[in-house]
């Protein structure tokens, strides 16, 4: 499987004619080139796999809109981009509904990680086990003293996304530390 454009179009033409093997090869190749595209835009591997499945289903559903004459990749990427935006929109809308201000998060925790019993240093080993982005955010906020807004500017994320990531990290830490 080379993934050369002409190969993909040829596979799709065969798939549209009912060739199951060609269709399977096409979808495998599509998954192969979409996975890095999604990985660069999403946090976890499970999110990538979930969305990838949704995109493959959409490609299957919309395959009658492809004629086998024009390049396949722009068509597939258009669907992938559409589903990705849809996913991010609903994902962030959902998280923002449940998002809690950083100042309030400390009250949610059974013990205040920023005060006496926990310091950033005392739980740095647990923090290092967090996903890289979350660990960086906590380090910047609690060790280097940046606000969520400043962190967002420095690492090129939205402030709301930083808060959501921090909130997730606190939840993970809470579970680990309470155990």
């Amino acid at each position, binding site marked *: 499987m080379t993934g050369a454009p002409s190969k993909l179009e040829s596979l799709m033409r065969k798939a549209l004619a009912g060739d199951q093997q060609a269709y399977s090869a096409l979808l495998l190749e599509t998954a192969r080139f979409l996975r890095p595209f999604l990985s660069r835009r999403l946090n976890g591997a499970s999110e990538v796999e979930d969305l990838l499945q949704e995109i493959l289903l959409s490609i299957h559903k*919309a395959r009658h809109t492809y004629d086998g004459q024009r390049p396949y990749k722009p068509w597939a990427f258009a669907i992938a981009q559409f589903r990705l935006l849809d996913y991010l929109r609903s994902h962030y809308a959902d998280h923002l509904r449940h998002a809690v201000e950083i100042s309030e998060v400390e009250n949610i925790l059974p013990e205040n990680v920023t005060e006496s019993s926990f310091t950033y240093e005392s739980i740095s080993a647990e923090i290092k086990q967090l996903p890289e982005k979350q660990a960086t955010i906590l380090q910047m906020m609690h060790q280097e003293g940046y606000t969520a807004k400043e962190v967002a500017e420095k690492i090129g994320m939205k402030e709301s996304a930083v808060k959501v990531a921090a909130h997730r990290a606190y939840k993970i830490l809470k579970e680990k530390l309470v155990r």
Partner: protein
Amino acid sequence: MKDVDTLIAALAREARPVRQAPHPFVLFAQWMGGAVVYIALTLLYSGLRPDLLARLHSPLYLLELVLLLGIIATAALSAALLVFPDMHQKRRMVFSPVLMFALLAVLIVISWQADSPPSPPPVHSVECLLYIAFLALLPAAWMFYSMRKFASTHHYLAGSIALLAAFSIGALSLRLSEQTDSILHVMQWHYLPMIGVSLIGLWLGKTLLKW
């Protein structure tokens, strides 16, 4: 990873010969053919304006009709492209209605300046908007029905453009049947509502063209 492979295997088992969607130009031709027939039928019902032949000698009026037809055609073409996930890889054509709109806006300004002394406005006002909206119902329903068979990744825009095309069909029909030369009236009750209609189309597109 394993789930993806399982899904691919399941989808591949469903592979059957697929009836392809028509080319966007075919869809466009169908819609334009339908629009011409529909306008003819509505004019049969409402009748042509009595002074139409005389008015056709006015370049501004003639150009207005041509531009309205241009808006219908470009909007229909744009909608036909927007129903494909990749816009059939003809992105530039999608934005062709913008040019027609700009030209119509310029023409309206010129017609306004040329309307001196101003032509008396007709006694009716909002009735025109309602009549155009009524005329647009059937074309809009047809277009949305056709569009739902495709897979638009720009459903907001597709809905907006489709409704604009349908409304323009109503506007052209009324412009050929209503005997008024008041450009202010035409601007206020025929053309400005197009903006509002396009906004409603965004919502309709979001609701009806989801897949």
